[in-house]
């Protein structure tokens, strides 16, 4: 690229000044991952040592991040189970429905899963029900996304699909239930950044 331009006008375009300017921008906006690590600019908050409350495990994968982890349960409060990885990412589920994430970068801060839980228990029929989710926006203020959801038809007898629609998104969550009606496997939408998360109970 530089060569072509240099031929056009060797004397006049001041590459040195342009390069200096570009370097300035980098200075202002900051360096790269190596620099951040070398300069010790990372965090100093330790991942809490998971204090497991039962032998169950949950295998989770994030296809968009090409990442996988196995989580153990660390808390049960008001019908919500919090699962955690060794490196400090936690996911909270109400009756198998994801309601919170912590440590994913664009976390699902809270959500209202009552409609989905009722649908999974067969109480909704084909009716629509609302689903409200909160995130943090770029200025760390609560940002709300609301959806209308309904059970979708599936050709799979053990899978229940749920389609949720907002003004600019349509997502489909899938749940596999065991004979006792508990979610043993799922594919759930986390948010626009992470997209879908797949979960599977691996030990009971």
């Amino acid at each position, binding site marked *: 690229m530089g060569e072509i*331009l240099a031929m056009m*006008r060797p004397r*006049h*375009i*001041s590459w040195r*000044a*342009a390069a*200096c*300017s*570009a*370097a*300035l*921008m980098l200075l*202002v906006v*900051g*360096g*790269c*991952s190596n620099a*951040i690590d070398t*300069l010790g*600019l990372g*965090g*100093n*908050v*330790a991942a*809490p040592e*998971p204090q497991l409350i039962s032998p169950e495990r949950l295998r989770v994968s*994030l296809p968009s*991040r*090409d*990442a*996988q*982890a196995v989580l*153990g349960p*660390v*808390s049960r*409060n*008001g019908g*919500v189970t*919090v699962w955690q*990885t*060794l*490196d*400090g*990412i936690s996911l909270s589920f109400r009756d198998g429905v994801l309601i919170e994430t912590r*440590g*994913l*970068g*664009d*976390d699902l*801060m*809270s*959500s209202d899963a009552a409609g989905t839980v009722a649908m999974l228990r067969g109480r909704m029929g084909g009716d629509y029900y609302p689903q409200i989710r*909160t*995130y*943090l*926006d*770029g*200025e760390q*203020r609560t940002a709300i996304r609301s959806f209308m959801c309904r059970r979708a038809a599936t050709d799979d007898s053990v899978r229940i699909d749920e389609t949720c629609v907002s003004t600019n998104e349509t997502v489909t969550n899938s749940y596999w239930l065991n004979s006792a009606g508990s979610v043993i496997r799922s594919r759930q939408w986390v948010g626009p950044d992470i997209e879908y998360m797949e979960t599977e109970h691996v030990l009971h």
Partner: protein
Amino acid sequence: MMPGLSEQIRRGVLAATCALLPASTLAESEIATSYNSYGYPGLIDMPVATSRPDGELAFTASSFAGQTRSTLTFQITPRLSGSFRYTELKDYPTATGLVTNYDRSFSLHYRLIDESGLRPAVAVGLNDFLGTGIYSSEYVVASKTLTPRLRFSLGMGWGRLGTSGGFKNPLSVFSSKFETRPARAAGQGGTVRSASWFRGDAALFGGVEWQATDRLKLTAEYSSDAYPIESPSAFSRHSQVNFGASYMLRPGIDLSFRYLYGSEFGVQLTAALNPKHPPAPSGIEPAPLPVLARTSAAALSWPASATEQQGFRARVAETLSDQGIRLHGIDLSGDTARVEIENTSYPQEAQAVGRTARVLSRLMPAHIGTFVIVPIASGMPVSELTIRRSDMETLEHDLDASWKSFARTRIASPAGATMPMPGRYPRFDWRLKPYLTPSLFDPDNPIRADFGAELTATFEPGPGWEISGGVRKRLVGNLDDSMRISNSLLPHVRSDFNLYDKSGDPAITHLTAARYFKPGRDVYGRVTVGYLERMYGGISAELLWMPDNSPFALGVEANYVKQRDFDQMLGFQSYDVATGHVSAYWDVGNGFHAQLDAGRYLAGDWGATLAVDREFNNGWKIGAFATLTDVPFSTFGEGSFDKGLRISVPISWLTGEPNKTAYSTTIRPLLRDGGARLDVGGRLYEQVRPLREPELQDGWGKFWR
């Protein structure tokens, strides 16, 4: 269990940061507003009437025919943008022949009317209204979108934008004084040249933008700029029609090529990012500890013996320390646990409070029903948050956890002193870290920098006492290349900075003893003695009054200082001065903050500084300041008065990890001696403000994070 998920997340954030990815994205089927060669919203050399997204910060570098312009532009509000520009003009004609001229200038662009229906968008702008006036011009421009990919602009320019195809100023129907534009004053620049705005010949300009694809935009314009000074010495003009092509390399980064004035090729690189769009909005720090409901907790009871109490305190301190929070004091009485904390990690104090409350829910004896959490700054208690333990238990997984918990938290301003626990004092801390000091837009070299190692140490013998020092050793850099000798007519209180750069290696950056105290409920105080900053040592005293529920605060600061030796060791020069200010602080709202300091400056001059900053809730700060003192413009020298821009980028925005450090820089067209303020560390307003209710409320979104 398998680690590695968080590592993948972290890598993703850093990759986005390094690539400057998360700038604004192109709106659907709309024409992107480009930055022109002067770095403000425009075509190639000419303006358009549209604006860039609110909050965007853009850097543009353009070059053609030896005219290299580097511009920093900030979209201050949705309608107003401001630019600061550094220009290198080759083959610039002067009385002594052709020279390379360096110039600094400011521009403002304001969108008056939005496009709607048949009505075009209309904007007005001022260029180089403060500098030496090389680019002095004004314009009114209208832009109309004809198809989703085609937009026309037509405008009228004055000053430099009225030099080609100029005609009698239509504004002269109002007054004949509009017919002539006063000559560019040959003085020091820096004066607001409102007397010449919209005066003299006017001319029409215009152009068309065609968004060929989502990434490629083609532009043609008719320029009304005859380059009256630069042409023909720098280049020859054959035509007023310019052509350009812009290609978006990735969102926020554009590369443009131009063919200008029928004779020259030009190139421009634009890099834009928006502080509103961090790579990781919620942060990637580890999850907080889960709340432990008392029903499931093994009933803990307050230990009776002194050694057991000590062990209990140590356990709370250690658990908090893992969370990046330092326990300052702890006291249990009745059903209340009062805990003083020092937040060493989280940019949002509310997050430190939330994590502390979670820790307390896990460790406090079952009979404790109320948590009183007191954030401490430099040994001073700033706020007192009363949180019911049962609210932590019931709201942890609530959809409206954030606002419900804020509404149920009582926030007060504490009276009285802190109650530090045994072992908190004395405390010694030191760290070795790298430093980088850029010098931007020096008249001889647009960018210089030093990089080296800095050793700092702090000793706190008791609450509110702080003895600290710092030493720097340069590793590489060229700050000492500056050969410019100060020609200032004032005492050289700042303009000998390059002598400090040359001689101070290694240098003692500061060596001070400070006392912080709280004489009243809303009053904070500071006394600092020693080597206060790189150029001055002495004594500095400050009082700050910050009433509750008020957007205003008032401070006074009085200093007696002596100028330090250039080598920045222990010696002093003969110059000494009493300097100080009365400061009024105003939280304007919508993220804008204003500060007015009136008093006596380092050169003994009297005057006032006005600073306005836009603060983003994620910690970015972008602002401007100007100081007028009783020093006449002619005595001040080039620039006429002190002014500049300041930018502060929180490291946590870049990394997504909790860190209270920010990279801050001040950009001044010139650093001279008038209106210079002492740069003492530990000023109270910035220490106290993040711990008070308005900031806690703004950060409450992170209480449960």
